[in-house]
């Protein structure tokens, strides 16, 4: 089959690779209809995530049609139209049972790598290196879905394919940030990053009862999209002092909940950016934590900060003093999509959450390398490049 493969730092190519097959009894094979680029893929591309091999198929946000089921799959049948959560959860370990699906104990096939890096390994994810399980990704004609009864969800009729694809990753990730970030009725919520995940986090905050939601970015087209489709206030950080602006917009209090949806390739103006960029390139620091620093500094006393952007390792100049002295709660996670998908698909179906506007560039999988170039460099207003194998 055809697949988009990682070939080395900043190198992608469409190749022919062996078709996936049922390897475990709980597996099924999905014929991919849409598969989306995600901000966290950029960390893979840049070589900041360890344990990639040339020829690894990337991609983890996808939907499609079931074409084969393993003997222990009971929920799905051939022909089902499904969206699949990016993280793979077994459904039966303590973590899955406690709705912490991305921390599944049984789906990372290379636990020693994750434990070496982080103390304990997270669960497996599609197309995201051998440190995250070694599962081939979704930028391909077919993908093997382990523990399909738990990770795949039938798409309601009212939802079209292109709207459904973002229920795989962007929607649940954003929802989780607002939910586990502790958004309550009446809160003011600030979100760093107006990409797909940031927009979905902002929408989730509103649906969870926040009275004021402010999304911070620098790209005018993303800010306009956020205002139009998400209904949030926007703030262009290239034109103002974010901390000061947030303070004044919140009556001098600061946001109750700050959600960081940017990750390790954060961008800003000024010397701090250069400092982090140089350190990152020298591999002295592998993550650029600009947005998370700003979130911690801007958050109200006793507030909560949630990190959704993907970080891989070490950061420095981390404002631990602000965290401690302001009594903040800091939390982060990879998405626990299985926990939220039935509810989120209902909300997409009834129009409470709209997603298809994120697919600014839909193209053939053959155009994968070009799509990633557009996505990475935000060319032509690209928010997400979505591929049709």
């Amino acid at each position, binding site marked *: 089959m055809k697949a988009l493969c990682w070939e080395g730092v900043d190198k992608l190519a469409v190749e022919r690779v062996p078709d996936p097959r049922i390897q475990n009894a709980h597996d099924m094979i999905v014929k991919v209809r849409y598969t989306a680029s995600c901000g966290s893929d950029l960390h893979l591309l840049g070589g900041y995530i360890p344990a990639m091999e040339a020829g690894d198929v990337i991609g983890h946000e996808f939907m499609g049609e079931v074409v084969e089921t393993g003997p222990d799959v009971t929920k799905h049948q051939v022909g089902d139209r499904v969206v699949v959560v990016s993280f793979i959860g077994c459904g039966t370990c303590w973590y899955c049972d406690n709705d912490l699906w991305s921390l599944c104990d*049984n*789906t990372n*096939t290379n*636990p020693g790598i994750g*434990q070496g890096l982080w103390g304990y390994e997270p669960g*497996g994810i599609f197309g995201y290196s051998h440190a995250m399980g070694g599962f081939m990704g979704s930028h391909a004609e077919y993908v093997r879905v382990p523990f399909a009864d738990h990770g795949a969800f039938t798409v309601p009729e009212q939802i079209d394919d292109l709207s459904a694809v973002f229920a795989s990753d962007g929607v649940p990730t954003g929802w989780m940030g607002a939910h586990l970030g502790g958004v309550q009725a009446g809160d003011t919520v600030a979100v760093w990053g107006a990409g797909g995940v940031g927009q979905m986090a902002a929408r989730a905050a509103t649906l969870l009862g926040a009275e004021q939601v402010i999304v911070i970015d620098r790209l005018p087209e993303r800010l306009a999209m956020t205002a139009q489709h998400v209904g949030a206030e926007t703030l262009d950080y290239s034109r103002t002092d974010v901390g000061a602006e947030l303070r004044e917009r919140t009556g001098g209090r600061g946001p109750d909940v700050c959600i960081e949806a940017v990750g390790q390739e954060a961008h800003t103006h000024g010397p701090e950016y250069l400092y982090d960029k140089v350190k990152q390139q020298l591999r002295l620091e592998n993550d650029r934590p600009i947005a998370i620093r700003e979130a911690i500094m801007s958050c109200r006393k006793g507030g909560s900060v949630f990190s959704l952007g993907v970080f891989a390792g070490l950061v420095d100049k981390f404002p631990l003093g602000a965290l401690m002295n302001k009594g903040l709660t800091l939390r982060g996670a990879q998405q626990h999509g299985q926990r939220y998908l039935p509810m989120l698909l209902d909300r997409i179906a009834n129009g409470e959450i709209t997603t298809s506007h994120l697919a600014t560039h839909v193209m053939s999988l053959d155009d994968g390398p070009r799509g990633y170039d557009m996505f990475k460099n935000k060319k032509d207003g690209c928010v997400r490049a979505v591929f049709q194998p």
Partner: protein
Amino acid sequence: MSKVVDAATTVPRWAVKALRGLTGATDQRPDRADGPGRWLVVTVYRKAEDVRTQVDDSGPLSRMRGEIELTVRPAPGDKGTELAARPTTSDDGQVDARRRLRAALRETKSILECGEVVEPSRPGSSHPGPAGQLLRAVTARAWGEGRL
């Protein structure tokens, strides 16, 4: 070996230490070579009876029964059952024996919790190259490594 690891472009320096641990030079302090090896413990989200039955009847631990001792006790907070194993004789600081035991414990947990051990995608890559070959050496051992 460390030179090769440093040269691999897919492996940032901060990750090298972590990966080096998997290439034999583990950063864990070696056990005393004269006594039995350290207990390796895994928590299985199942009842103690189920765990006991599994290790007695079938699976990788039952096949190692002659070389190891086992204990089974409930984990606090309804987290399941702690299954501990250690070699009955000294492993002379050999990491292979410990790796084999870790792998057997993990497999036992996985079989008890979800009925099978999930496999990584095979074949894993179309053309791994030199850095990929190194990574394959690491991933070949990663199941038997870690803190367990």
